């Protein structure tokens, strides 16, 4: 226990603190931009990133993973904020935390393996597209200066990393271009036009909403979506960090940790959040291995905001828009085009459906659920093909079954049998089949009865151990049929 704590907190402290600082610098523009997407003051996202980073560093399951205010959650809550305001968002965040905590205790981490790659790829693609679309209003049709700032930002974030490795390029773009704006002035909107920056630590307060059923009805659908999307992105990110570091992490602890972090954040004026793929990769690349990196990221972030808050309001919006466009490009899975050409047709279809549903409903959670449902249906169809073959050798008539026999496959199975035999000995051979449920057993009973009605004697053979067990428990077949 002590050993584990030491390893997760104190190994290579220098490298982890450095990585945390780098991430803090990269987090600031994103936290502000995601707040603006959600329609709240920048402080709501900044407080969320600060609180979630710090809390997750202690209660999360995946050391060196970074969590904070994310685009995925911001996109979900737009209608809630615009219709009901900030207090309802905070209440929804608290409830989101409670739901995640419950799901964590129910060990939902294990359920993640039921989300196929096709749905995950659809998820990140839909997220990338939605984040990109959210920036259109900040880029197009404002002013020539706006286009110039966006283009220069994009050039900086893609070219500068070739030469300067230690500092995050988005921060370089932010500092250099904001300085140019302050000295020269331009016709662009700034962060100050869209919200305020408070130079103080977050404080505890209870969201000002009526505590009644009506409030619950308003926030519950949002909280559910936020909880699901938060967990999907967090557990995907945890897998990515596991892979990048060749270590394993507890997905259930991470689920509970995300719940605790969101629950507390809601009481301190922060919006809901989850793990961030891009930031976590930056953290690991910068040398992070421990929880200290996540803690440092949160603390440095809020320190910088308190010290530099007056300048933050001067940041031109197009710089943030450029940075968010970069985030959206990094979020999109560019291997998808190859995937669409090569993957099985049903997988490619599920991926496209997931993206389409999200773009249509503006809700990533619905996309994931529909995607999983489709892939489950395809899977069931694929394995519900039972092949029945007949063999007549002199007096021996064998009906051979191949495949998985369960509720979805029994109809096609029975349709293949013609029941034309009279007064013969018939053997039903199940050596290459598996009976899964009571429908399967009923179907076998039906087949036996239909043959017997025409004077045949029926013999059921070669059931495997599992199938034999449910036949014994559920079937009306007697020992004579089975020996």
């Amino acid at each position, binding site marked *: 226990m002590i050993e584990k704590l030491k390893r997760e907190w104190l190994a290579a402290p220098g490298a982890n603190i450095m990585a945390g600082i780098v991430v803090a610098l990269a987090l600031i523009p994103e936290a502000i931009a995601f707040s603006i997407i959600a329609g709240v003051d920048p402080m709501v996202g900044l407080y969320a990133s600060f609180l979630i980073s710090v809390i997750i560093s202690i209660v999360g399951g995946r050391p060196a993973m970074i969590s904070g205010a994310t685009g995925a959650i911001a996109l979900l809550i737009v209608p809630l904020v615009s219709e009901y305001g900030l207090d309802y968002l905070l209440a929804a965040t608290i409830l989101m935390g409670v739901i995640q905590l419950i799901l964590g205790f129910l060990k939902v981490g294990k359920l993640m393996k039921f989300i*196929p*790659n096709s749905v995950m790829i659809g998820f990140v693609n839909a997220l990338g597209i939605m984040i990109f679309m959210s920036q259109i209003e900040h880029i197009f049709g404002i002013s020539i200066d706006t286009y110039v700032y966006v283009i220069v930002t994009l050039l900086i974030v893609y070219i500068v990393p*070739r030469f300067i490795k230690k500092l995050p390029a988005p921060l370089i773009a932010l500092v250099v271009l904001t300085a140019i704006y302050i000295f020269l002035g331009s016709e662009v909107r700034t962060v100050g036009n869209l919200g305020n920056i408070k130079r103080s630590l977050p404080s505890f307060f209870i969201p000002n909403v009526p505590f009644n059923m009506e409030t619950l009805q308003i926030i519950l659908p949002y909280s559910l979506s936020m909880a699901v999307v938060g967990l999907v992105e967090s557990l995907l990110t945890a897998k*990515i960090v596991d*892979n*990048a570091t060749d270590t394993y992490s507890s997905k259930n602890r991470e689920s509970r940790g995300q719940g605790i972090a969101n629950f507390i954040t809601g009481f301190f004026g922060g919006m809901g959040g989850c793990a961030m*793929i891009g930031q976590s*990769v930056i953290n690991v690349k910068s040398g992070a291995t421990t929880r200290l990196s996540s803690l440092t990221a949160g603390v440095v972030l809020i320190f910088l905001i308190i010290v530099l808050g007056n300048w933050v309001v001067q940041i031109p919006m197009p710089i943030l828009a450029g940075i968010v466009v970069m985030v959206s490009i990094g979020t999109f899975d560019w291997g998808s085009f190859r*995937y669409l050409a090569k993957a099985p047709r049903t997988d490619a279809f599920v991926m496209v459906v997931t993206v389409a549903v999200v773009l249509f409903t503006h809700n990533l959670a619905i996309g994931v659920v529909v995607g999983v449902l489709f892939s489950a249906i395809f899977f069931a169809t694929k394995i519900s093909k039972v092949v029945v073959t007949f063999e007549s050798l002199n007096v021996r008539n064998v009906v051979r079954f191949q495949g998985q026999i369960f509720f979805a496959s029994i109809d096609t199975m029975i349709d293949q049998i013609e029941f034309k035999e009279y007064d013969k000995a018939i053997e039903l051979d199940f050596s290459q089949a598996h009976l899964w449920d009571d429908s399967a057993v009923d179907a076998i009973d039906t087949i036996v009865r239909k043959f017997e009605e025409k004077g045949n004697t029926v013999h059921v053979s070669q059931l495997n151990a599992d199938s034999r067990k449910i036949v014994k428990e559920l079937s009306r077949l007697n020992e004579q049929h089975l020996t």
Partner: protein
Amino acid sequence: MYKKILLAADGSENSYRAAEETLNFIDGNSEVTILNVINTNDSKDDVLHNTPGESINAKRKEKLQSIINFYETNNIPYKVQFEHGTPNETVVKIANSEKHQAVVLGTRGLNGLQEMVLGSVSHKVAKRAEIPVIIVK
């Protein structure tokens, strides 16, 4: 002849040519370390496009199989080393770890613009490694 030589290999055609070139610098008593850097930036792709049930590690090893076979048939002692990180930085770090006498690597043959955008691993390694660097074109 070098006794300990480092081969930076990504499994590409170029890295196979680099493997062939090492034979001019070693004999049967030398040991080749085949270094494969797993780019942290590729982690997302790996996770999203991994076939369920197939281990990511097995896939990585498979990429190097042609190079491993090459050393097997030539009876050269070798070992395989996987490292996580950014390719050029990690190759430099291992090259400068004082365990190897020279480092061999292939080059993608990028033009000026591609090099500016993509970054050239061989260029960075040549500049910052403290042992002889053999770049195979």
